[in-house]
């Protein structure tokens, strides 16, 4: 049975269960009915589709438009935008031009965040070598990942519309540079539902000590119901806010109190007939189960030593490595979308923490081993075939040196650059061991195989079984979608 049939069957089981519930309680699934009217100027199909979601069970499994290649996503966002020129995009010509004045032709009509006037070119701050069967270029800063290049597809001519962090991150995750749109994880959980109702369907894990620039909006549900928003799971304190019972309340008393609440609510339902009460009863039961299942999923103490060695994890810390291992545990348990953010890639060179010759190297070191371990671990468990792993920042960095103050500075850095950057993607349905897209001699812009953020989104949705133009939701009078009015599936990277 392929994934699509599986999803369809799960959906049918769900419908049957709902049908049963409906005959018992009369009248659930209310919204589905409201759209049947024929004569009224009913809104378009998007409204109908949106309204067909069962309001009493919005996370129920749903089949996508066609047979999917992947069932879930792990998105590793390197917040701050890592330099492609120090990691994947090998440019010997740029090395030769190091220290030269940037030609005027590159500056014409461009807006930069911090570069002033005419900057100098900056050669690669790394050494490069080809790796694997595929011969992919990877720099000396990522020795671990270099061993997995044959499982990865590199998109080397990514581009975006935005050159500041917050709007660019929003564009990556919500398809719009302005606030207020649902994030990719929300769209995907809205579209597919969840396989494990005892865990949040869309989990967010942060590391690097700082939240994403655009805040919770990069995993918000926008105008979709909040049930689809990303739930941040934390390594310190409650993994999900307010998960722990109050001090002095035993598990047993909590169970009994929920029983009392639900018994009274069930009686209330008999009296007033509102089906919303049945939903509330179900949600209290689920909350009780989550109190056990979430800490269990988030506790990495039970992992064997070899796993900890492989990832470089240490239980109890807030680290990117721990988050990678958690991502594997979560997808293993059926979580649909896991979103990692690791802050600290904004390598302007204005100070040590954000310099290509200092902080940037720390970021590489922190992430290289766990990212590679995650790929290997998923692969050895047979999960990589049905899980998409995406790695990337929100934009790229300039081939020019950024020197904000014009003064001597021991640190080197590069400014924000929206025209080109590298993203890699691996897993279910992706052609492994390929490089798509090329940049010019100095890595300033893509010359072939350019892929816009909306194209990447269309491709991810395609791999999950969606036509990105049909996964829509009605809001403010029109059907909105993740890719706005753009997006083209990158067929070249499909397996």
């Amino acid at each position: 049975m392929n994934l699509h049939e599986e999803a369809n069957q799960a959906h049918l089981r769900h419908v049957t269960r709902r049908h049963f519930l409906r005959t018992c309680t009369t009248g659930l699934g209310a919204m589905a009915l409201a759209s049947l009217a024929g004569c009224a100027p009913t809104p378009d199909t998007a409204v109908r589709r949106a309204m067909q979601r069962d309001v009493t069970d919005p996370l129920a499994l749903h089949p996508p438009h066609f047979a999917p290649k992947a069932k879930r996503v792990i998105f590793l966002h390197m917040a701050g935008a890592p330099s492609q020129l120090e990691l994947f995009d090998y440019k010997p010509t740029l090395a030769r031009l190091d220290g030269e004045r940037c030609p005027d032709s590159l500056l014409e009509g461009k807006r930069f965040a911090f570069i002033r006037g005419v900057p100098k070119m900056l050669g690669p701050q790394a050494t490069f070598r080809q790796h694997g069967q595929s011969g992919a270029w990877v720099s000396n800063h990522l020795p671990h990942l270099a061993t997995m290049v044959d499982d990865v597809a590199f998109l080397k001519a990514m581009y975006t519309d935005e050159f500041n962090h917050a709007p660019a991150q929003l564009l990556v995750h919500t398809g719009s540079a302005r606030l207020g749109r649902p994030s990719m994880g929300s769209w995907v959980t809205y579209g597919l539902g969840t396989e494990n109702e005892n865990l949040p369907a869309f989990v967010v894990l942060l590391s690097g000590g700082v939240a994403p620039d655009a805040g919770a909006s990069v995993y918000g549900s926008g105008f979709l119901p909040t049930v689809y928003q990303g739930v941040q799971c934390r390594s310190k304190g409650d993994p999900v806010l307010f998960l722990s019972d109050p001090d002095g309340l035993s598990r047993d008393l909590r169970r009994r109190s929920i029983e009392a609440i639900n018994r009274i609510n069930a009686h209330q339902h008999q009296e007033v007939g509102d089906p919303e009460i049945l939903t509330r009863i179900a949600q209290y039961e689920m909350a009780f189960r989550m109190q056990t299942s979430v800490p269990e999923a988030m506790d990495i103490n039970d992992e064997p030593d070899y796993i900890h060695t492989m990832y470089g994890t240490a239980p109890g810390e807030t680290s990117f490595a721990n988050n990678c291992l958690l991502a594997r545990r979560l997808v293993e348990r059926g979580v649909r979308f896991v979103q990692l953010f690791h802050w600290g890639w904004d390598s302007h060179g204005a100070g040590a923490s954000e310099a290509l010759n200092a902080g940037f190297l720390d970021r590489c070191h922190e992430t290289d081993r766990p990212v590679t371990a995650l790929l290997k671990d998923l692969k050895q468990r047979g999960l990589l075939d049905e899980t998409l792993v995406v790695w990337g920042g929100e934009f790229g960095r300039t081939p020019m040196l950024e020197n904000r103050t014009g003064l001597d500075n021991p640190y080197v850095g590069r400014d924000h650059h929206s025209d080109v950057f590298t993203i890699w993607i691996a897993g279910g349905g992706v052609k492994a061991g390929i490089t798509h897209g090329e940049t010019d001699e100095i890595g300033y812009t893509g010359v072939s195989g350019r892929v816009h953020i909306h194209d990447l989104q269309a491709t991810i949705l395609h791999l999950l079984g969606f036509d990105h133009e049909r996964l829509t939701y009605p809001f403010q009078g029109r059907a909105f979608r993740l890719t706005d009015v753009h997006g083209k599936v990158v067929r070249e990277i499909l397996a």
Partner: protein
Amino acid sequence: MPKRILQTTGLLAALLAMLWVGCADGDEVDFNHDIRPILNERCVVCHGGIKRQGDLSLLFRVDAMQPAESGKQAVVPGNPGTSELLRRVSHHDPDERMPQEGPPLNAEEISKFRRWIAQGAPWADHWAYVSPTEPERPAVSDPAWPRNGLDYFILARLDQENLAPSPRADCPTLVRRVSLDLIGLPPTPEQVASVCDDSSSARYETFVDSLLASPRYGERWAAMWLDLARYADSKGYEKDIPRTIWRFRDWVIDAFNQDMPFDQFTIEQLAGDLLPDPTEAQLIATAFHRNTMTNTEGGTDDEEFRVAAVIDRVNTTWEVWQGTSFACTQCHGHPYDPFRHEDYYASFAFFNNTADWDQDNERPTLPLFPEGNEAEGLALLDEIEAIEKRMIEIASTPEMEEARRAWEGQLDDPQVVGKVLGTRQNEVRRIAQTPEAERDDAQRAHIRYIYAEIVEDEQMDALRQERRAKQIALRDIKPILTPVMKEVPPTQRRTTHVFERGNFLLRTEAVEPGVPASMPPLPDDAPRNRLGLSQWLVSPDHPLTARVMVNRFWEQLFGIGIVETLEDFGTRGLPPSHPELLDWLALQFMHEHQWSVKALLKQIVTSATYQQASSVTPEVLERDPRNRLLARGPRFRLAAEQIRDQALAVSGLLSDEMFGPSVMPPQPPGLWQNPYSGARWQTSDGQDRYRRGLYTYWRRTVPYPSMVTFDSPSREFCVSRRVRTNTPLQALVTLNDPAFVEAAQALARRMLDETAIGDDPVPVEDWLTTGYKLALARDPSAETLFPLRTLYDEAAQHYASSPDDAAAMTGQSTNPELAALTVVANAILNLDGFVMKE
């Protein structure tokens, strides 16, 4: 199985009838009813406001009657035979046939087109763009049922559907409902008793009056308005640093409490600064549109985000007052509604000449000085202004102008451009690249201003130093600076251009302020500024404003609007469930109530419709699951603020302190982690921990967690409707959030303290009854009391042997009874009946 099909068919028929009465198949074809839906659904995607394939648009009649690219005329009134539209939709060749996408039109649809064209192809405006007219009071089956005018419309519709209204809700339930609705707080047991001892209509009405007169009333309705105003205590975007704009929130509370007429409420917020001799309050009111976000992220383009703020003002104004999704027209003509691309920028022009421009200091601001420092503060402000005026004078001398031109030519040099302050370099370069003759007044003033700030010149240096000293002196006085709207001086006005595809860098033709041609015109003598616009919005013949507003208040009370899509009254919004009622209420609001919101609310809550019981039978639920017909009273979950306020109120913790800076009640540590921002959550002390939800500090990127969980928006943009979800995370908040646990502890103490001591030595049932009554305003049934009693016994047994647990649960004493009551109180605060308005 056959029975099931029959049932479904019957249901379908009922729904069809319900949503659109009289889908007649007679000869007369109604454009809005029969034709526009087909055009919208099947045609305008390609022949509309965005795409005009074959040079044909079917949005405006004039366009449909013009020869298209082919030279043929789509619609020839009175002549179906020569109308190209009809030929193409009925063509046998799929290559010729329209629409190209999807199935062909069916015979009935084609017949509608034929008859419509034969009848002269009359075009009609969408209902919402036609001014309401006084509907006739409909006849009803039971003239004794209506309590006021609105009930006739509801009952007449129920009569058509063969549904009967529900009986009046029982008195305690009704008292709780109206109290939560009007002041956002539950009634006290004493209030319930005072109304329900004699549950006459007179007692109820007196109670309604007392609620409307309560200062709590303004707080409740401000909470609704603040979603529309996108009020927040932070500036948004990356750093999302604090903003001081709470005086606007207080203005809104005051305005509702004073029942400021809605037309005045509108004018003061949109244009208070343009009124003659505006008061301080009228200036504060204009902060409505200073709730737009300010981007303080390093390296951003200030002009880009100034434009973003203006765009937000346009979109918000149209959404709040017009229920119109105008945002579409930012990039292109409206896809479905009669608004053109230029209309957007004509609206934009009203808002494009305020003095704010995405600066971190949020100028212009209105200062409020601490008592005793007013004179000093005002003097300093005057002096700073004088210095800046002097700086501009110097920068305008011919020598300086010459030097500036030379400087403009050197902006490629990092040494030179590096001195351009902060984030202004992109705008400065754009202006420098524009030939001087082509710059508008604003650009000329802007670059001169920037130059004055950075030029190395002895005289300027001295002035800047002097200014700096005064700014420090001013800062030391600690004035409260509220961002307000202020027009730029006439010499610095910006010219508004249409932006190609909404991109602010692609300016095309210049436009003047104006309103869409499809709406009533601006009066000739109306000023072409925000004041003129706001007066136009509340003019009596305006078709939208009053309808949009009564619909908003209706939705707050009934959970769903007469027009469900509060934010979209256009052709893609949903049609009204009771079109005549909507018009009647809109006219009442404007004329009978003279825009008094209190009078409107009173009219609604004293209606028979509102006072119905909310319980529902399976049959009615099947017929009308979402209560569109109102054969029963409203029943839905309380809003985020109300959930919090109610728990604090029934436990006796709620502070009744009003106004002032926002407060920071406890929240879990580690939530605020914005990059490049040092802002910290500093938990408030004392009473400020227990203030109403609307005073809680609202940071856009990290809103208060329990509020977001209960569906409050981030306030980054105007939100008309909060979607109501029902999730396990909400259960976790009310079960475990320390704020709710504290409320349970306090409620448990009240259960002990406020129960009269009877003969029974352990009056457990009495304690439980006290708690339930405090929380839900009514007596518990035996079926409710029994599970609570069981829970109490189990808990009491546990705590008798575990004093440490008892102390933790009560937060103080090891008394096992109090600990057990705390567990019960926690359960009561989680009952469906508690979080719902019933």
